[in-house]
């Protein structure tokens, strides 16, 4: 196990007392098991106590995405709760996870940014019937919704061009008048947007472009 992973795992289990390492190498992952209790910002404790297993891939750490399995079945096995039959939790839209993975994670921070909020949000849904910040639609529709929110546009053709520019399919010089929005020099308008989504990585962008293209064909 590499020393950064070892340090991060130790830091985590010395901070969150309900977690322990149950296997240092299970299918190439460090396997951590423990309980998550939900405490809100007022310091009130919610009754749920989720038992989870977290698998952190060893090779490539910190450029990895840990996987979380809820094993106490406190979350109903229903797609509306973003969980698989086996309890694998869909922590976030893949793009957010990819950005974290490509940047390199610190496991404690990953727990605080993705894992703990996921379970807190489940409590919120149980009590109020909805998620605190809405949710993405399932599958491809969710991806389209994500781009629409990230690029602040309802225009799918615009999204398509930004993705094309990001992956280099559409070559535009920095000082060229922008062919996407026709408004400005490329570097001043759409280039920052293309750069922003480039953080998801080329593979993801190619898949997303495919989804956008299919949707556009459907529309026309």
């Amino acid at each position, binding site marked *: 196990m590499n020393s950064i992973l070892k340090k991060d795992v130790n830091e985590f289990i010395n901070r969150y007392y309900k977690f322990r390492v149950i296997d240092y190498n299970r299918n190439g992952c460090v396997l951590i098991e423990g309980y998550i209790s939900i405490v*809100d*910002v007022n310091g009130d404790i919610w009754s749920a106590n989720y038992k989870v297993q977290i698998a952190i891939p060893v090779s490539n750490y910190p450029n990895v995405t840990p996987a979380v399995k809820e094993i106490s079945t406190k979350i109903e096995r229903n797609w509306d709760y973003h969980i698989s039959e086996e309890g694998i939790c*869909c922590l976030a839209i893949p793009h957010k996870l990819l950005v974290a993975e490509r940047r390199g994670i610190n496991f404690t921070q990953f727990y605080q940014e993705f894992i703990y909020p996921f379970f807190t*949000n489940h409590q919120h849904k149980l009590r*109020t019937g909805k998620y605190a*910040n809405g*949710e*993405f639609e399932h599958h491809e529709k969710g991806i389209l919704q*994500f781009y629409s929110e990230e690029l602040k546009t309802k225009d799918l053709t615009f999204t398509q061009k930004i993705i094309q520019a990001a992956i280099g399919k559409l070559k535009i010089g920095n000082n060229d008048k922008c062919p996407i929005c026709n408004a400005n020099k490329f570097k001043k308008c759409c280039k920052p947007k293309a750069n922003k989504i480039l953080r998801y990585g080329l593979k993801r962008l190619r898949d997303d472009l495919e989804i956008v293209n299919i949707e556009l064909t459907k529309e026309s």
Partner: protein
Amino acid sequence: MNIFNPYLEVIKKAVDRDPKYTNRFFSNMPDEDYDLSYIQKLRSELPNLEKLNESVQLAKGLGTPSITSLPRLGNHPDFAHLKSSRNTEKHWIISAFVDVQKSTQLHNRFTLATVALITEGIVKASIFAVNLCGGYVHRIQGDGLMVYFGGKNIEKGQATKDALKAFSMISYFVKNDLKEYFELNSIRDIYTRTGIDLGHNNQVLWMYSGLGDSGEVTTCSLHTSLAPKMQATATSNGIVVGQHILNQLSSSDKYFNQKSKPIWDYEDGRFYNHYDFNWERYLVDNDFAAQNLNGDILLNIGDYSISNDPINLVPIAKINKPYLNFR
């Protein structure tokens, strides 16, 4: 609700009203010149027996037998028959000492009456925790307690767990609830230190010591004597326990760290060790406390989530926006 709130509230009021503190940049007035009559009223606001019962019921659930009278100090009920007699009895006991350490800063900032009230508040909160967990307060010093856990109707292992729980709660109260409030007022350094040890049947002699009626039923034991020595080695809000305590727990390694030097040399080649007790891990591990997003500890005794407001989940929950990609 936090079971220590009634104590915290009184301490807060005392701090807020302290004339020396509110006047601290301007005055060198001696304490005598301030009107401190409000202190007596505040003292009476510290929970009495009735409140103690209320809190015990809250923490343990309804139907809990109430404490009808706090047992008198100095006479552990199981050994009270030794009072005024010359008889002795051998019986195991857990002895514990806790005291409140105050910085000179605290004395410089506040009138003595306020410092005394803060101390009294912590001591009374400690008495509450000890009673809640089934311990017996043997003696009250101005800024500390001597406590026994155990007796004739309880198992050693259970008494050990009760003692660890009680002192963990006390350390929690001072380290968290109280400290949080004091830090808001830039007051540093008020903390407790605790020493706990267990003596077995052949190691503890119970006897009456004193003249006539003015004495107490007390223990003569190496392990009663070692507990305050351990207390002296404790860090801020630390709890130090003897080897016998740790031997009572089935899974102990994760809670205890052996101190480098033994606390006792039997002078026959054997040594008696003492250990720093990770009470925060103990509280969480045994579900007496929960941890929030950042790992901070919150006491989980007498808490009801039915009345929780989901609005307080939102700042954490909204970090998550769910998506589903399973097929």
